[in-house]
């Protein structure tokens, strides 16, 4: 990508993000209830979107060749175990990332 393409990409992200922040204040008035379908999506969409993002992060990992995605699988297991144990977001992220760095630098 060229620098102008970077700027257009970032502008597209800003536009999308700001739409999600400003839309409620433009579209909904306090005296009118939020449409039921929107309320429903608000409840169920986040789980599915974060699942999609986890898959997105792993999109270039090959599970059938190379190291079969073992560093990723182990590091995700460590992240999840830390999170179930301590429920400290930063600790789980830091622990999982350090584990992954050690694995790809020294083991695989």
């Amino acid at each position, binding site marked *: 990508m060229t620098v102008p393409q970077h700027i257009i990409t970032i502008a597209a992200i800003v536009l999308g993000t700001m739409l999600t922040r400003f839309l409620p204040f433009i579209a909904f008035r306090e005296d009118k209830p939020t449409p039921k379908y929107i309320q429903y999506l608000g409840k169920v969409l986040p789980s599915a979107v974060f699942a999609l993002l986890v898959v997105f992060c792993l999109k270039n990992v090959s599970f059938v060749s190379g190291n079969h995605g073992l560093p990723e699988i182990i590091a995700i297991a460590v992240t999840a175990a830390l999170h179930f144990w301590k429920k400290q977001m930063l600790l789980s992220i830091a622990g*999982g990332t350090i584990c992954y760095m050690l694995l790809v630098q020294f083991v695989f």
Partner: protein
Amino acid sequence: MTQKKTNLKAAFKAAFPKTIPIFAGFWFLGMTYGILMNVSGFSFLYPLFMSMSIFAGSMEFIAVSLLLATFQPLQAFLMALMINARHLFYGISMLDKYRGTGIKKFYLIFGLCDETFSINYTAQIPEGVDRGWFMFFVTILNQFYWVSGSTLGGILGSYIKFNTGGIEFAMTAMFVVIFLDQWIKEKNHISALIGIGVSVVCLLVFKADKFIIPSMIGIVVMLTLLRKPLEKEVAA
């Protein structure tokens, strides 16, 4: 004028302590993001301007991989919409609270990230402290932590002596943790499982470069089709 100054000071004094925990988190994640940008070959100006203009942490992490891929602005726009869709519901919840805050309202809406929402939505603002200025300081302090952390990471990235190979996993770990938090909170996991199923199928069918938009469409279609039974589950 002095009255206004006292008001501002009181609002700042009430707001600052509430943001200290966010400071720790934003500096840690912001620096990781800045270092990641740096090792991906971007100048610190990128995290600086992106944190000022986008100001949505998870989206900025995703943006690193979008900037490294082929030029697909429509996909970037749609991803920003989907990833940040939760902001719609923060906005709806804040309609009332942000009313009557004057010109500050524009910035309050602009800076409405997860952490700012959680403070401004739940805070018991002390008697006599101006509500608008309190929320304004919470918002601007949080953004200041994020912008400074990510810019610092972008600068320090060049001076780091240890091997940063694998640091990109911070993004995966972050989404795994957010996903798990959702998983623990929810009564049933149908939506989470739809999210995994649809994206894995789309990844296999459309391949890594092109699977995001089909996945998003698939997820919304599935959730819309399953609305009746899922709403019953949620209500039960």
